[in-house]
């Protein structure tokens, strides 16, 4: 268990800034997801924490101790790689035993032939065997211990990689997109397994992913990164409901949040598609963008109308793609009741509750609504 603190981390490759000053504090026992589109610097940040990549400036502290000059292995963190990175010539058992052997055996004891003859090595090997078998038991890979990685399926390799990380009892676990090589079904299963592992070990998990569903379902906190900056960090619900940047709103949530052009009037009221919303803000008059999540669109009633251009029925829910009349825009609404879907090409009315609306300025920053408005918005009134 560890608390990790990053201060003003900067990194550039060949003149390109990959990380532009990251300040972040990861608490003891948290499951943190670093999420963002590819190329946002999340993997680089993880590698800097691990010590595999030196930062250009800034500090990493683990449990209050600066670790910048410390080798990766001495930081006592464990990492699970996207490709699993198992040693192909070693059996499952030996793969898991490597970190223990490197730590517990002396250089002489590790020698291929001579080392095995030493009595001290034999005693230590007995402990290592017990530890590896214990881990294998926990991860359900005990029958696979003699196999080589080449003989394992993707999910099994994944477990072996987790086992190799667990066996050394690290201060924190670092995961670099560990599920992206698995098929969709196994990914959902492993998601639950990893979350359960976190609850059981109560260790600090830092999990890098570009998949917002993984971040939403497993983590206690999400840190959203874009273009080398950490834009927002918070619990999954906070990130989903109160994104402070339009890029966060658009990245988190599937299907994507609907963004409509809006206008802030001089008195602080907000118009969208020519209709006034029952809310106001303190921002200066001008253009703005109005975001509404697909599940907050009420189809069937409201001041707006649109034509159904596409229907996606997933069985448990359905997505209705609407072309908004007179705006040349499309939006997606999520319907929970698939038994009453509008017909294709039919015209439907739609609206949304005032508290479903998030307003962003042209630069993409969130605009706060007025306090008294927020109070009144609790009642689910249609605009």
């Amino acid at each position, binding site marked *: 268990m560890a608390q990790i603190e990053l201060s003003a981390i900067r990194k550039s490759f060949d003149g390109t800034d990959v990380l532009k000053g990251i300040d972040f504090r990861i608490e003891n026992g948290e499951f943190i997801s670093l999420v963002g589109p590819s190329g946002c610097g999340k993997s680089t940040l993880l590698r800097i924490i*691990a010590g595999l990549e030196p930062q250009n400036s800034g500090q990493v502290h683990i449990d209050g101790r600066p670790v910048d000059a410390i080798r990766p292995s001495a930081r006592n963190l464990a990492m699970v*790689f996207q490709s699993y990175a198992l040693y192909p*010539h070693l059996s499952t058992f030996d793969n898991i035993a490597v970190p223990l052997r*490197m730590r517990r055996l002396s250089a002489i004891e590790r020698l291929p032939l001579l080392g095995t003859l030493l009595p001290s090595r034999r005693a230590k090997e007995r402990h290592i065997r017990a530890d590896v078998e214990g881990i294998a038991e926990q991860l359900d890979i005990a029958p696979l211990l003699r196999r080589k990685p080449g003989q394992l399926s993707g999910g099994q390799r994944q477990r072996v990689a987790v086992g190799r990380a667990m066996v050394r009892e690290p201060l924190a676990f670092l995961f670099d997109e560990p599920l992206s090589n698995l098929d969709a079904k196994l990914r959902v299963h492993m998601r639950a397994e990893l979350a359960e592992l976190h609850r059981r070990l109560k260790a600090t998990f830092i999990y890098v992913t570009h998949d917002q569903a993984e971040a939403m379902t497993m983590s206690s906190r999400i840190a959203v990164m874009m273009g080398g900056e950490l834009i927002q960090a918070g619990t999954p619900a906070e990130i989903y409901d109160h994104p402070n940047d339009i890029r966060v709103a658009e990245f988190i949530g599937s299907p994507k949040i609907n963004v409509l052009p809006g206008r802030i009037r001089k008195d602080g009221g907000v118009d969208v598609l020519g209709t006034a919303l029952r809310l106001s803000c303190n921002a200066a008059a001008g253009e703005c963008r109005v975001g509404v999540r697909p599940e907050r669109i009420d189809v069937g009633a409201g001041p707006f109308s649109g034509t159904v251009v596409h229907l996606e029925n997933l069985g448990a829910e359905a997505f209705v793609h609407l072309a908004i009349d007179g705006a040349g825009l499309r939006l997606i609404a999520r319907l929970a009741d698939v038994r009453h879907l509008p017909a294709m090409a039919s015209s439907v009315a739609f609206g949304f509750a005032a508290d479903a609306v998030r307003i962003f300025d042209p630069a993409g920053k969130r605009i706060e609504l007025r306090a008294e408005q927020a109070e009144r918005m609790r009642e689910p009134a249609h605009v």
Partner: protein
Amino acid sequence: MSNAHPIPFRAILRHVLLIAGAALMLAPFIWMISTASKPQTEIFSSELHLIPYRFALADNLREAFAKANLLRFLLNGVIVTISIFVLQVMVALPAAYALAKLRFLGREALFALVLFGILIPPQATAIPVFLMLHKAGLLDSYAALVLPFTISVFGIFLMRQFFKTVPDDLVDAARMDGISEFGIVWRVMLPAAIPAVTAFGIFSVVAHWNDYFWPLIVLNSEQLRTPPLAVAHFRNNEAGTSYGPLMAAAMVIIAPLVIAFLFAQRRFIEGITLTGIK
């Protein structure tokens, strides 16, 4: 064979060409075996026949072993080629690892120098190397046979190209597990690179087992001679060249190479199929 497909002309032509090529390659070997099996009188007879009227292979072998200390020369060959190969691997693997996986200033320039080194024929540096060995007082020794070949730029190049294909994650995982950089070379990269090391081993062993030029230059003592020099010994006999024993000796000298190659070829294919996982 009424239901047999008619054999197309192109297929016949292809096989004729292949057989002709194979015959051309094998001819010297067949000639060697044939001559090694003939008594002296038949070798010098004017008629051409491959199969001798009287088999004299045993006599020729006996004479070859009696005339020269063939076993000693074979042992010299083994000592020299194995030492060269082991030292080449010990130099080439860490160098190739550094060139393939470590980031440092001047890496590309160093690699360009390695490529440049491949272009230099060994004969071009023979005289300077000879003079250096002379100054060091190492001429006419095993060291003179081994030392000039310990750094193989070709080996560094070959291993570097192979190491490039080893995923970086594997190296990073080894670092997280606490394996040192040299440990990574021997514990992670070497096992992953067995096919490449085997391929390099075939090149290296064949080249240095058959090397005639360098041993001829640096050796004087008979007991240090390598196999090719031993064969030459039969030719320089003042009593005239005795071709039967010479060819028998040549057979003996080639045999280990052929056996080693067959063994390595199997390992080679095994290696490729075993390590073909990500």
